[in-house]
C-alpha cells in the first residue's frame, strides 16, 4: 500500500466519520446555546439570530463548512453501511446481538436516518424560508412590522404539537446516536488511553444533556404559544 490514500482505507474512513462527527458535535453545542437564549431572553435570541444570519463570516464560511460536514457524514455513513452489509452476504438464521453489544451501537444507521429526516423538516421549517427572505426577496433587515422577526417566527413554528412531538422523537434518537457515537469517534481516532474513561463519562453527559436541552426548549416554546 502506498503512503497516500489514508481515506481510501477502512480505518481512514472511520477517521473521516469521527472528525466530521466531532465538528458536528461542537456545532450542536453552539446551536443549543443560541436556542437557550430564546427561552431565557428573546431579545438576546433576536440579536444573536440577526448576527448569525447576516455575518458574512457565518453565512459564507461557517455555513458552507457545516453543510459540507453534514452531507459528508451522511454520505460516508451510507457508503460504510453498504460496504459493511456486503461483508456478510448470507445472514445468520439466529443473531443474538444483544448478548455482546448495545442497541445504539448496532443501529447507528437507523438513528442516523431519523436524524436525516428531521434535518429535512428542520430545513423546510427554518433554513429555506430564511434563505428565501434574505437572498431571494433580498430583505436583510431581519425586521417585520418594526420588530425583529426571528423570535415570533420561531414561536409560530412551535405552535404545532405535531411538530413538537416530531422534534422530541428526533432528539431522543439523536441522544441514542450520540451515546454510541461520542465514544466511538474517539476510539476511531485512536484515543483509547488513560483519558478514555473520563471522556466516555463526559460523552454520556453531553449525549443526554444536549438533546434534552433541545427538547426542553421545544416544550417551553410550545407552552409559551399556548399562553400568548
Amino acid at each position, binding site marked *: *500500500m502506498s*503512503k*497516500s*490514500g*489514508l481515506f481510501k*482505507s*477502512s*480505518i*481512514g*474512513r*472511520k*477517521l473521516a466519520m469521527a472528525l466530521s462527527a466531532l465538528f458536528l458535535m461542537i456545532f450542536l453545542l453552539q446551536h443549543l446555546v443560541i436556542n437557550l437564549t430564546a427561552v431565557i431572553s428573546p431579545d438576546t435570541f433576536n440579536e444573536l439570530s440577526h448576527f448569525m444570519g447576516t455575518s458574512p463570516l457565518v453565512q459564507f464560511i461557517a455555513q458552507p463548512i457545516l453543510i459540507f460536514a453534514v452531507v459528508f457524514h451522511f454520505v460516508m455513513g451510507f457508503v*460504510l453501511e453498504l*460496504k*459493511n*452489509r*456486503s*461483508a*456478510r*452476504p*448470507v*445472514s*445468520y*438464521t*439466529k*443473531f*443474538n*446481538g444483544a*448478548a*455482546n*453489544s*448495545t442497541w445504539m*451501537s*448496532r443501529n*447507528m444507521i437507523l438513528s442516523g436516518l431519523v436524524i436525516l429526516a428531521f434535518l429535512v423538516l428542520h430545513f423546510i421549517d427554518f433554513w429555506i424560508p430564511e434563505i428565501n427572505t434574505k437572498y431571494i426577496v433580498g430583505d436583510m433587515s431581519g425586521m417585520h412590522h418594526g420588530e425583529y422577526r426571528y423570535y415570533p417566527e420561531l414561536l409560530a413554528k412551535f405552535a404545532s404539537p405535531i411538530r413538537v412531538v416530531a422534534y422530541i422523537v428526533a432528539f431522543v434518537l439523536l441522544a441514542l446516536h450520540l451515546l*454510541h457515537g461520542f*465514544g*466511538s469517534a474517539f*476510539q*476511531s*481516532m*485512536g*484515543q*483509547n*488511553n488513560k483519558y478514555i474513561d473520563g471522556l466516555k463519562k463526559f460523552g454520556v453527559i453531553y449525549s443526554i444533556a444536549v438533546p434534552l436541552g433541545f427538547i426542553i426548549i421545544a416544550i417551553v416554546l410550545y407552552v409559551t404559544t399556548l399562553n400568548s
Partner: protein
Amino acid sequence: MNLTLKIWRQKNANDKGKMVEYQISDVSPDMSFLEMLDVLNEDLISKDEEPVAFDHDCREGICGMCSLHINGEPHGPDKGITTCQLHMRKFNDGDTIYIEPFRAKAFPIIKDLVVDRGAFDRIQQSGAYVSVNTSGNTQDANSIPVPKEDADMAFDAATCIGCGACVAACKNSSAMLFVSAKVSQYALLPQGKVEAKQRVQDMVAQMDAEGFGNCSNTGACEAECPKGISLENIARMNRELIKAKTAVKH
C-alpha cells in the same frame, strides 16, 4: 438431556445450503459441545447419513480451530471460551439449539459448518513478522530491555488464537480485532517497531482486500473473544495507521 438441533448443512462451496433439524437424546450435561456433535455424527453414520462437518483440533481452547455460531453467538452462550470449552450444562433439557457456520464474505464455507479462514493467514503473511537475520548471530531477545507494561500489553495481544469469533460476532464481519492484536503485539516491542509503519499499512490493506467490513466500535468482538483481546488494540492500530499514513517521507 434431549435437544433439538437446527444445523446448517451445505454440501460444498457452491451448494445453497439450508438449516436441517435433528433430534438428539441422552446428552450428558458434562459433555463438551463438540462431544455432543460427535455423538450426533456417530448416530448419523450408523443411519448411513452424511455426518456434520465441523472444525476442531486441540479441544483444549488453545488452537483456535473450533468455530460455530451457536444460538446467535460465536462459541455459544458463555464468555471467554472456545466451542470446545463450552459444556452442555449451559443448556436445558428440551432446548432448541441453532448451529451455524461463522458468516462472512471473507470466510467462504467449505462444507456444512467448516469455513475457510485462510484470509487470516494472508493478513498474517502480509506483515505480522519481524525481519531478523537467522544466520546464527541472532541477538538474544532478553538482552533488549522492554518496559514491563509494554511486554504485558504485547503478550495480551499475542494471546489471540486467530479463531475468527471477532469476525463472526461483528455485525459488519470486521476483522479489526484480529488484525489490531497482530499489529499491536509487534508495535509494542522494540523488535517490531522498526517495521511498524509498513506493517500496519500492509496488514490493513490486506484486511480491506479480503472483503472484511469496517469497524462500528460496537465492542461485540471484544465481548465474544475467547482470549479477551481488548478494543484498545483497535485504537492502537488506528493510531499506528494514521501515524504511518501522515508521516513525512525522508
